[in-house]
């Protein structure tokens, strides 16, 4: 589904050039659950942002669903993004001025879904993520875990092809973090494609495959075997 070849990203300031990504190759197939790990500044977030079309690459190739993404205009990127990609952030990035319902509904509005249809969809996903009773509340009135579930609901509402999660548990305590990770695993089990950036080995262990990055290159790659899974089976 995603093929990345020799992707580079250079940040230029007046004084110096920093190479954030120097020749990344990556293949993500439909149904993959991939996590990226690495120390601060290794370029993992930059990679995620490029995959999410929030940032543009300096060189190389990035194809999403057999379409080249490098060199697209802002408007085209925006339309690819809203149709195919769902985001989950560390700090949730909910709009405080809007209610939970309105937050979840936003991507549908931008995708020009009819109001009646929107209502059905939002209520369905809220039910699924166990936040239906919170729809009228505002983000500030929710706990961190609930907020992240709202963010997940928003990411999923549009049935995106791929979910990008940037340290989804970073702002949560371990118990709540665990709930969110189980939610993601659940989604994966139901066929979602997920790309996640994380600091936590524990979180990474939920994914199928972990890529370790360092200084802008893919340092190593390993397949995860979840011990938990073994016991539960």
């Amino acid at each position, binding site marked *: 589904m995603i093929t990345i070849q020799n992707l580079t990203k250079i940040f230029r300031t007046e004084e110096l050039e920093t190479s954030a990504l120097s020749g990344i190759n990556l293949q993500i197939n439909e149904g993959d659950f991939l996590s990226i790990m690495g120390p601060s500044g290794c370029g993992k977030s930059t990679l995620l942002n490029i995959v999410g079309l929030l940032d543009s690459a300096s060189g190389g190739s990035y194809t999403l669903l057999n379409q080249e993404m490098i060199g697209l205009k802002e408007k085209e990127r925006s339309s690819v993004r809203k149709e195919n990609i769902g*985001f989950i952030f560390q700090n949730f990035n909910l*709009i*405080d001025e809007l209610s939970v319902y309105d937050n979840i509904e936003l*991507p549908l509005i*931008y995708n020009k879904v009819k109001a009646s249809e929107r209502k059905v969809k939002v209520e369905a996903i809220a039910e699924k993520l166990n936040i239906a009773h919170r729809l009228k509340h505002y983000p500030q009135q929710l706990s961190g875990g609930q907020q992240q579930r709202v963010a997940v609901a928003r990411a999923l509402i549009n049935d995106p092809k791929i979910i990008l999660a940037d340290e989804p548990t970073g702002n949560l305590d371990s118990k709540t973090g665990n709930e969110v990770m189980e939610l993601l695993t659940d989604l994966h089990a139901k066929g979602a494609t997920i790309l996640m950036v994380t600091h936590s080995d524990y979180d990474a262990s939920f994914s199928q495959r972990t890529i370790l990055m360092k200084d802008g290159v893919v340092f190593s790659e390993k397949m995860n075997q979840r011990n938990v899974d073994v016991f539960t089976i």
Partner: protein
Amino acid sequence: MLYNWIKIFIYHLKQNKLFSFLNVLGLSIGIAGLVFATLYWNNEHSYDVWNPNNENVYQVLNQMGPQKEIWASNSTPFGLACKATIPEIESICFFGNRYDGGLLKYKSKKLIVKKAVISDEEFFNIFPFPIVKGAKTAILKEKNSVAISDASAKLLFNEEDPIGKSVNFENEFYTVRAVYKIIQPSAVEPDYVFNGLIKEGDRESWGNFNYGLMIKVKKDVAIAAVVKKMEKIVFENITQKNAKESGQTVAQFIKENGESKIILDQLKTARLQGTKASIGINFPEGQGNLQLVYIMMGLSILILVLSIVNYINLATATAIKRAKEVGVRKVVGASKSLIVMQFIFETAIVISFAVILALAIVELTLPFYNDFLNKDLTLNGSDFYGQIVLIFVLVIVFAGIFPAIYISKFETLKVLKGNFSRSKSGIWMRNSMLVFQFSIAAFFIIGALVVYQQVSYMSDKDLGFSGDQIIRIRFRYDDWETKLKKYETTKQELLKMSGVQDVSTFEGSFGDDTNSTSGFTHNGIFVQGHNVNMDFGFLDMMKIKILEGRDLSPEFASDTVSNMLMNETCVRTLNLKKPINTIITSGWGNDKGMLKFKIVGVVKDFNITGLKNKIPPMIFVNLKTLGWSNFHFVYVKVNADDLAGTLAELETYWNKNINQDYPFEYEFVDKTFAKTYLEQLKQKNLFFILNLIVIVIAIFGLFALASFSMERRLKEIAIRKTLGAETNTLLKELSIQYVFFCLVGFLIGIFPAYLLLQKWLEDFAFRIDIPLFPFVVALFSLLFLTLLVVLAKAYQVTKMDALKYLKYE
């Protein structure tokens, strides 16, 4: 501590150079406006304050006739009877309501005097200007006495002692009895005060309302009782007698001619609150324009409020950026009141700058303002300094307290934990202030357009006469018995000049009025006819049309004896269905009784007094018919080409044959008439300038507020962008609320605009109805400006780097 405050103030000043500058500028313009208005207010309210009698002295006005006209003049026997029979009245003074002028000679010196008052002997009793030299009492008692102001004394006599010197004024000799000092401002500021106003014949003529009358009452007198007694005198001596003469009962007579009433205006407030005379003027220095005083005050306060609102909005909006500073200060021990003090201190610095800048603006633009008001205002006076301090304090209070308290209330913990910068607190208030600003702006735009339309209506209006290429030249001639003859010969001589097309005259002046009015009754209807005693061909020269019948003409002998014309208004008022050949008993009489006239023509209505007033009923007879020779100008129609040459020729002729001692005075009739709406013309310009200022201030406020509120929403915008919002959608989302505020503000603004303009227009007899057009223009220009400002800012905001705000907030 102060040093610390100043340091942080300067830091923020540097951070927000543009906004700080605009803020100070806005406030200083607002303060400057208020200073201007205050200067004007002070000046108008200081009239006659100097006069120790100002509470005991009253001007007497008469309300007479079915149209309830207010006369500023009185008959002599009435005044004398008041003095003789009403014990509350201590003294009375007759004086000319208008300045007299003329030629003054002393030895070889010749001066044209413009501000002379002719009075009876009581003048200094009513207006006690301090006497510098000469007699202190009974100054004007002796016949042919004059008192002169110290400035005029210096001009005329240099170092000589003026007392006892004999001067010649308009061919009569007067002895200088005293030198006085004028104290300004005053209802009368004469350079010369001559006595001898009351002539022998005046004492018996109850019907001749010739002179201004002031009365001085004893202390603590009930003024209503005095009015009653004066009205009784009028009733017994005028109403009853006239009724008897016309063979009617008193009730009938009053029903037909209206009741005569007396109005007493206290000198202290006469300038601004006095009753404005509809016939004649109240005082030589005129009356104050209370409406303009209020307009100036109101508009300047509006502008100041506008800039204070800007300040508050900006201060509370930026305050969020300073939340952390406040939090830290509180943690290290600052009390709430200290925080309030700090921010008020900052406001005080800003406003000090603004006041200084405002005073500089006032100083620089005062000459234009003086020109506008026709005054000589200066930036001083102990009252004024006090007022400046008061303005300073008030602005600090209104602009400073609110943001200071708002900031001091920030919750320390929330602030320090961050995530405060998106706080919604204060948004509601800022938005309603924005709406308020929009309504002020709408008010000003509508106001300016309506005033503009009224002024252009007045300047474009068909006046019913054409003053094109017609000049009026002052014609001085003292001997009224030969004046007409002199005029005839002058006319013949002038017509010989190649540049002169036509010459004529009438007893009146365009833009002012006819020189006399006479009431008469026909079929039981009373009219106060304005007398147009005119030369043959006058209507023709002025292109005034005859609607029915014919113009007066030298071909008919009776046209100088018993034929008259009437204007439409007069015909309408008298309800004449077939006016031509109707015989009218006029208001003019001789020893054989009242003269009868036959109407031979109806004249189309034309404006004479200016568009504020309705066209009065007019009656037209030939100059010779009554032979009053009460005309002051010769009207000359000149060729457009070689105007300068013609004028020079006329001047030479005038200096040689007519007014040897006087300067040649001429004016184009169009221009004279235009003076009647000069004030509105100035108001139009004033409104235009104020409009610019208001719009600039309001737009700046909108820009600042939109900037801050959009910058606070950067994260939200970033999220929306991430979720796939397109630029157009975002622009719409960001701007829509401002369009809404603009519309609400406009709706609120139109009501006061409509009501106040309606009131303003009420003063004009000839006026426009408030059209829809200014409202439409105001709406669209406001919307346009709003969109321009907001979209520009919104576009800039949507171009931001979404990543930065997703990560680091």
